[in-house]
């Protein structure tokens, strides 16, 4: 059966460039481009967009991409694979979701920790892949196989059997064993080191703290995941998969000087930030507001890490540890900046 396929990729896989081309607006190309050539069937049209452009102009980008998709009348949309990428994964998951909701089945491929999995909202199928692009050879045939079946209108079985991420859907079925028996099996398996679950956990629901009555009395702290560190990165913060957060004194600093600070984050183009690190953490502006009495005081320690390919559990641990430090220091509020 000949199926009509559209493929979505980012600026890098479309050959436009790396971070320097992350601001590229949506692009439509005939036929297969880059990894699309490895899917094993004819790609009718390739759609591409810069990762920063998509994130910053999501509505416009989606509107344009969906318009092109609509014109093609494809049987299935394939997005990525985007591996561990956050922005690319988010774009893939979002486009796949919207396409699927408009009747075009969609398949993505990405690392299970990518924000694109949540962005897909269960509307699209996500094939789990490696974090690194070396997983390309394994990912493409898996995505292609699922895409082919979706295009043919086949019913797809449960995630564990068919090799895709759980979509958050529940189908009722009669189990062979009672809940009590299955619970004992899960417990015995866990004791043997095999941790399984029938229901996937979701993120915490934390109610918003009450507002601060008067910011003129409050101590504010600056925290960042932008990878900002003193020039030379003395404590060797990683550019991805940070194993720790770090803290540095802000005493005596009216702002961040480019000569004294740098970012080591490997997940975004850093030249703009390195030219003026206040673009990552607004130290200069906060100092002004404190001087004018709009904010009580600034906590004189910066907490920093690289938020790039950080496992969720690790990020949660960092957050809890930093929060505890801030509470112990009497800080009332945090301005956290992210890239």
């Amino acid at each position, binding site marked *: 059966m000949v199926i009509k396929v559209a493929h979505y990729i980012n600026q890098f896989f479309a050959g436009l460039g790396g971070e320097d081309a992350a601001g590229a607006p949506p692009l439509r190309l005939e036929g297969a481009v880059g990894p699309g050539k490895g899917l094993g069937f004819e790609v009718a049209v390739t759609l591409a967009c810069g990762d920063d452009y998509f994130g910053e102009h999501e509505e416009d980008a989606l509107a344009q991409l969906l318009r092109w998709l609509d014109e093609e009348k494809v049987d299935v949309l394939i997005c990525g694979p985007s591996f561990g990428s956050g922005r690319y994964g*988010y774009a893939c998951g979002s486009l796949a979701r919207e396409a699927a909701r408009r009747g075009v089945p969609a398949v993505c491929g990405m690392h299970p920790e990518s924000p694109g999995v949540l962005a897909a909202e269960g509307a699209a199928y996500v094939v789990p892949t490696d974090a690194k692009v070396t997983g390309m050879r394994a990912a493409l045939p898996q995505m292609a196989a699922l895409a082919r079946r979706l295009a043919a209108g086949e019913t797809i079985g449960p995630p564990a059997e068919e090799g895709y991420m759980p979509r958050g859907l529940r189908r009722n079925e009669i189990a062979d064993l009672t809940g009590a028996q299955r619970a004992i099996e899960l417990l015995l398996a866990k004791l043997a080191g095999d941790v399984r679950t029938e229901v996937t956990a979701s993120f915490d629901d934390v109610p918003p703290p009450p507002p*601060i009555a008067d910011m003129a009395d409050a101590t504010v702290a600056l925290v960042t995941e932008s990878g900002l560190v003193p020039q030379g990165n003395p404590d060797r913060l990683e550019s991805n998969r940070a194993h720790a957060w770090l803290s540095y004194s802000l005493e005596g600093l009216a702002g961040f000087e480019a000569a004294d600070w740098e970012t080591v984050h490997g997940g975004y183009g*850093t030249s703009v930030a390195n030219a003026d690190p206040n673009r*990552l953490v607004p130290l200069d*502006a906060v100092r002004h507001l404190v001087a004018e009495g709009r*904010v009580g005081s600034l906590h004189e320690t910066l907490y920093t890490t690289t938020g790039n390919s950080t496992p969720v559990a690790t990020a949660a641990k960092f957050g809890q540890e930093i929060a505890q430090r801030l509470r112990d220091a009497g800080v009332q509020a945090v301005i*956290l*900046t992210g*890239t």
Partner: protein
Amino acid sequence: MFITALPTIATMVGTNRTLRGVAVTSPVGEPSLGAEDELALRRGIVEQAVAMLSTEVKPRTVWEART
């Protein structure tokens, strides 16, 4: 509160007070502006951040940048 150019991701994981930042590569900066104008922009963003901290919000609230 959290300043980021990707507020949807922040909301997805349950962040309650998010302010949309300028760009992925510079959440609180705009390199096309001169130094004075850029500092004024950054001050404006921080003022909004300060306002958000002292405002009651529903869960997962996102504020857009004031223009």
